[in-house]
């Protein structure tokens, strides 16, 4: 049935998640580090090839397709899982760790899946495990946000499933390979919609800031890495060179920037910048050249590190002070200077400062845009870079650690550096962000295609520094304009948040009235005649049918009494004698024949 056993990295996490609640608390911390370390080691040791093929009914499930593309995504997911677990190491509730590990297992399973069915299976596992990272925050808002997240992802999953079935019935193959992007069938469009939803491409994006802003302090560190980047992997695998993705990606890069200006919650701001950064990747997939695909993988790799670091920094502020809004924070550099430094490093990395990780990855996609003669895409992506530095590099650090001190007395007193494991995770992330930025072969040698790309040219450094530093000038000149406002910005989740209320009002008002009216009509015209008919039937039943039946029963009873008087003894005795006699007769007949 199966080929030789191949240890799937996700299996280590799933087993770990199952065993974790049984581990005595004394051994829990080492165990929490052991499982992601083993998973990461397993991911590191994978050799290219196709493994874990299992025949199931008419399908061949392929659990382990290891190639250049899946390896680079698998590697960074494993690394992120290890550092994310380290960050939340002091969390006592084991279910939180288990949920996070199952979520990562879903992501790894989808990345190494070689067929659509396996992909779908792990895709759904991701959605249903990650929602707990939101629910475990245990605020009423988190519960609602979690349900919205789940509903949206269920819709996306259904689109994906419908697309997979349609497409595979058409082609007769369940293998997960690139779609024919010049001629997409209906199934492929549905699959694309499912992928784009998980990549948070507008208008299918509103679930992301909604849920990630409501996650637990360490849950959002996991959330920010896995769902969108797994979708980027799936797009890379399925739709490279699909032209439509370039304008979608560029629009998304700018969309996130606009909402980040308006946002007052630091973690929701970071969430909008995920949309913006994933926009670069989606656009890169659309360009589809070797340089672009390399850029997508490099940027996903770098992004997971610096975005994880940024969510760790803001998560640390949330964990220590209980606040994440700029209007409740400010001036914290005296209380949490190291957290400030780590977050700043994340901010400089996402802004693509020279020597930081974003610099060596983002430029590949922009360069690929210019080389594909998509000048508008190149310029607009550079404009999005302006917005990135403006918010993540400047606004977040400034309004949390400097700026006006909006903290209440209580917040100020609670604020201090987070526990050692959180500091260690942030320090490790910071070192990685700088290492990836300084030593390019570490990242470039893992990319799917060989590359001679060199980001450290005089022109590129000059271009980047000019863009970024003059953005800073604009920031400080317009600082008053950027003062945070305690507002929420309406996004497309309005349609299912207020839209649902509207549906309810319609249901309570006109629909309820209509229902009552129909009910009344039914009672008058249907129910009452029916009751009358039923009463008539009852009388007929009572007088005629019952009479007949009773009469029959009486006559049967009378006959029984007469029979009884005819019988000598008990019926069983007579029957036994009769059967014995019959048996003797049969035996005699058989013997004589």
């Amino acid at each position, binding site marked *: 049935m199966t080929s030789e056993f191949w240890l799937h990295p996700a299996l280590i996490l799933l087993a770990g998640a199952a065993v974790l609640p049984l581990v005595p608390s004394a051994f829990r911390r080492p165990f929490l580090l052991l499982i992601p370390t083993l998973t990461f080691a397993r991911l590191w040791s994978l050799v290219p090839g196709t493994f874990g093929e299992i025949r199931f009914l008419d399908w061949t499930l392929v659990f382990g397709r290891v190639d250049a593309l899946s390896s680079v995504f698998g590697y960074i997911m494993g690394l992120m899982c290890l550092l994310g677990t380290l960050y939340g190491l002091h969390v006592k509730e084991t279910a939180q760790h288990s949920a996070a590990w199952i979520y990562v297992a879903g992501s790894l399973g989808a990345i190494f899946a070689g067929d659509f069915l396996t992909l779908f299976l792990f895709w759904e596992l991701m959605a249903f495990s990650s929602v707990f990272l939101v629910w475990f925050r245990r605020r009423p808002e988190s519960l609602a946000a979690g349900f919205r997240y789940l509903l949206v992802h269920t819709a996306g999953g259904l689109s994906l499933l419908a697309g997979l079935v349609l497409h595979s019935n058409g082609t007769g193959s369940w293998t997960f390979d690139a779609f024919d992007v010049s001629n997409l069938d209906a199934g492929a469009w549905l699959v694309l919609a499912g992928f784009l939803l998980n990549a948070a491409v507008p208008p299918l994006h509103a679930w992301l800031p909604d849920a990630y802003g409501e996650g637990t302090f360490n849950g959002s560190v996991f959330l920010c890495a896995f769902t969108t980047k797994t979708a980027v992997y799936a797009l890379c695998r399925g739709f490279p060179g699909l032209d439509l993705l370039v304008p979608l990606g560029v629009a998304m890069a700018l969309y996130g920037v606009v909402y980040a200006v308006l946002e007052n919650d630091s973690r929701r701001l970071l969430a909008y910048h995920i949309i913006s950064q994933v926009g670069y990747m989606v656009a890169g997939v659309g360009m589809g050249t070797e340089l672009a695909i390399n850029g997508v993988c490099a940027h996903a790799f770098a992004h997971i590190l610096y975005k994880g670091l940024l969510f760790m920094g803001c998560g640390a502020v949330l964990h220590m002070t209980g606040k994440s809004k700029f209007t409740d924070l400010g001036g914290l550099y005296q209380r949490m200077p190291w957290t400030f430094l780590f977050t700043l490093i994340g901010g400089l990395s996402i802004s693509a400062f020279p020597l930081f990780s974003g610099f060596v990855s983002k430029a590949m996609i922009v360069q690929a845009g210019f080389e594909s003669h998509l*000048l508008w895409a190149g310029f607009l992506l550079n*404009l999005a870079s302006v917005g990135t530095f403006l918010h993540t590099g400047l606004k977040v650090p400034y309004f949390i650690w400097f700026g006006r001190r909006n903290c209440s007395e209580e917040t100020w007193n609670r604020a201090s550096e987070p526990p050692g494991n959180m500091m260690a995770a942030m320090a490790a992330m910071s070192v990685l962000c700088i290492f990836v930025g300084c030593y390019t072969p570490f990242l470039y040698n893992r990319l799917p295609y060989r590359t001679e790309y060199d980001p450290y040219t005089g022109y590129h450094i000059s271009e980047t520094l000019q863009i970024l*530093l003059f953005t800073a000038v604009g920031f400080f000149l317009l600082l008053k304009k950027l003062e945070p406002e305690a507002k929420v910005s309406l996004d497309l989740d309005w349609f299912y948040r207020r839209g649902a209320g509207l549906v309810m009002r319609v249901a309570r008002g006109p629909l309820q009235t209509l229902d009552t009216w129909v009910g009344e009509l039914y009672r008058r015209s249907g129910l009452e005649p029916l009751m009358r008919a039923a009463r008539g039937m009852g009388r007929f039943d009572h007088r005629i049918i019952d009479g007949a039946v009773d009469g029959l029963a009486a006559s049967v009873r009378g006959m029984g009494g007469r029979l009884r008087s005819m019988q000598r003894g008990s019926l069983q005795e007579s029957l036994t004698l009769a059967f014995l006699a019959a048996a003797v007769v049969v035996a005699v007949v058989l013997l004589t024949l």
Partner: protein
Amino acid sequence: MKLLAFIEFLRGRLRTVIRICLGVLAALVVLDAIPGLVHKEGHAHTWVEAHLPGFWAAFGFVGCVVIILASKAYGHSGVMKREDYYDE
């Protein structure tokens, strides 16, 4: 705690820090105009980049101002609501 002392040190000399930053900004634009340092041929994608020193500086500054003003205008056009908007 050395880090905190360093931040305080910089904040105590804010004027000097700003002057140094302005010097760096000016130097960036000047250096961009020196062909020996910044090879534009083969790297610049369009005519303006190649022939306008400090093009990207202007791009960064104008881009930043446009993003802030346009986004705020969008936000104040009715998109930004009270925080309890969804609780009603």
